[in-house]
């Protein structure tokens, strides 16, 4: 397939499928009280999108990038966008399978699938945006779909509260991004990323408006990427959404915010040393705050949500090292962790969701899944408990699971900087990783060594359709732990590209 055509379909398919899914589900619901066609259409549409993804990806890896010109708008898929698109589509496909039993007969089921597919489409587009304003448009489209999905249980107070907090904070953030765009445009007269980069290239310090624009990008996209003082919406939103959506939000949406931030900062590359230092500082904050808050949670999904805050910290360390010091290994580790985190946290949220469904939702209750509810779950749900165990141990960074490999790669890259401050930061990150076991390990202990809780004793079974995506992801987490080199083919080009955007020329060291 022609790469340009493949990219066109990659962008169009999810966005075209979304209204079809809604209408088919709605029509079938009216006729026969079941929105089943929406479920299957969503899975089929996402599986079909993997075909243009394959051809686009092949061309990107061969030629570096694929461009598409639509009127005045230019889209360009490069290595960074490819990682995001691949992660998003793979996770969304698994989530769509998982949601079939999970969302079954839920009111507005067809809307859930339509929004899920269009959210995936907007994130793929976000990765391809080639000018600042276009980046904002995709970003805002992603935000709107995610607002609706967070507040999906629209009669639950918790979900409404989470939706309102998320919407207000995100909307303020996106207004900040717009002001940043206006500053860049007024100063340089262009918005295309590489042209802006060329226009601002010059001796430091950058003019104040451009530095201010960078700060506004950091804050505006930082809300979505949950940089620490701006993370307060995250634990509410990620724990109140339906579990499949929690997996999406934690696994890819905050990372999409991070990619958008890196793209926007990339066009102000002369200041990359400062941006790198800021990313490292936020990384440290994210890790420590996320971990300490996760320690004191009593609800499983809230705990995982805080753990996402801390995992974003590791990614920030990797990208901070890459941006500030031009070390491509840092970005490779960051991208590997991004992909890995989508798998691990997606698995954790989906396994917890399967238990939540079996223990509470299938019995008509909207109570949250408490950590106490998991007591003795391994006896009745051996496979789900195993999947959850693998997920949390990988998140905690236990070798030889995949989480260890990506953290290790980031830490090694940190030592490549030969900077004492970064080395201390890396040691701090390693300590944080151990600290995170303080809340993951008791979870495993409870499932395997405690007497079954009342909730487990009364729980229903977990269906095969829910278990299948869990099995696939568990296997992937283990496989990537033993053979982390499998994803080098996509993380390395992205890393080299990212470092070159920020003006570095770092080569990749081999391990």
């Amino acid at each position, binding site marked *: 397939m022609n790469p340009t055509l493949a990219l066109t379909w990659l962008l169009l398919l999810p966005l075209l499928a979304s209204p079809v899914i809604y209408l088919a589900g709605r029509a079938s619901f009216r006729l026969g009280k079941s929105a089943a066609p929406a479920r299957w259409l969503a899975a089929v549409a996402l599986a079909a999108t993997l075909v243009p993804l394959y051809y686009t990806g092949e061309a990107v890896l061969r030629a570096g990038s694929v461009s598409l010109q639509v009127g005045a708008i230019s889209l360009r898929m490069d290595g960074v966008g490819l990682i995001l698109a691949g992660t998003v589509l793979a996770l969304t496909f698994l989530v769509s399978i998982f949601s079939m039993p999970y969302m079954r007969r839920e009111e507005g089921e067809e809307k859930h699938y339509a929004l899920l597919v269009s959210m995936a489409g907007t994130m793929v587009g976000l990765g391809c945006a080639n000018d600042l304003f276009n980046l904002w448009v995709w970003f*805002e489209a992603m935000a709107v779909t995610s607002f609706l999905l967070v507040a999906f249980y629209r009669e639950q107070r918790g979900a409404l509260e989470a939706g309102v907090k998320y919407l207000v904070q995100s909307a303020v953030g996106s207004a900040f991004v717009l002001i940043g765009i206006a500053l860049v445009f007024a100063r340089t*007269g262009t918005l295309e990323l590489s042209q802006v980069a060329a226009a601002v290239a010059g001796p430091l310090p950058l003019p104040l408006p451009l530095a201010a624009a960078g700060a506004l990008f950091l804050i505006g996209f930082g809300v979505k990427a949950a940089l620490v003082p701006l993370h307060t919406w995250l634990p509410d939103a990620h724990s109140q959404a339906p579990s499949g959506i929690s997996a999406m939000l934690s696994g890819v949406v905050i990372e999409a915010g991070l990619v958008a931030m890196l793209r926007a900062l990339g066009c102000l590359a002369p200041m990359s040393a400062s941006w790198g230092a800021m990313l490292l500082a936020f990384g440290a904050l994210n890790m420590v705050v996320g971990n300490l808050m996760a320690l004191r949670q009593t609800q499983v999904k*809230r705990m995982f949500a805080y753990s996402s805050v801390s995992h974003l910290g590791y990614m920030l360390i990797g990208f901070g090292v890459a941006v500030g010091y031009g070390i491509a290994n840092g970005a490779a580790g960051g991208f590997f962790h991004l992909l890995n985190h989508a798998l691990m946290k997606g698995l954790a949220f989906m396994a917890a969701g399967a238990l939540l469904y079996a223990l509470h939702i299938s019995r008509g209750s909207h109570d949250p899944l408490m950590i106490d509810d998991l007591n003795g779950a391994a006896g009745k749900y051996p496979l789900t408990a195993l999947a959850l165990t693998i997920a949390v141990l990988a998140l905690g960074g236990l070798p030889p699971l995949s989480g260890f490999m990506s953290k290790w790669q980031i830490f090694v890259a940190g030592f490549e900087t030969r900077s004492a401050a970064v080395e201390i930061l890396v040691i701090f990150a390693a300590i944080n990783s151990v600290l995170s076991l303080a809340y993951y390990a008791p979870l495993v202990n409870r499932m395997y060594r405690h007497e079954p809780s009342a909730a487990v004793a009364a729980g229903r079974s977990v269906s095969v359709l829910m278990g299948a995506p869990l099995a696939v992801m568990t296997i992937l987490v283990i496989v990537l732990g033993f053979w982390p080199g499998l994803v080098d083919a996509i993380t390395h080009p992205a890393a080299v590209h990212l470092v070159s955007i920020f003006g570095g020329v770092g080569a990749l060291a081999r391990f």
Partner: protein
Amino acid sequence: MSLSLPLLAAVGVLGLLGTGLLGLLVTRNLIKAVVGLQILVKGAMLALVLAGRLAGQIQIGQSMALTVIVADTIVSVVALALAVQVRRQFGTLDLQALSTLRR
């Protein structure tokens, strides 16, 4: 002292942004928070138009502002739909009632 159009617009941008942020910070009413957001985004729109003028590309600035109007309207619609549900479920629009979730 002469007041040029760009200067006037810049003052307008800052005024709108300040009013919007202040409104968001002091209000306890969800509808008023949405109004605050609207004012904030209007400031950003004016900033885009002004940037277009300063860069000598007025049409690009204006077309961006038009796009923002569309996106902003969608966000407001979602926000107001949430407000309707909040009123139904909580019986109030007071933002302080929206703090049932634990820290």
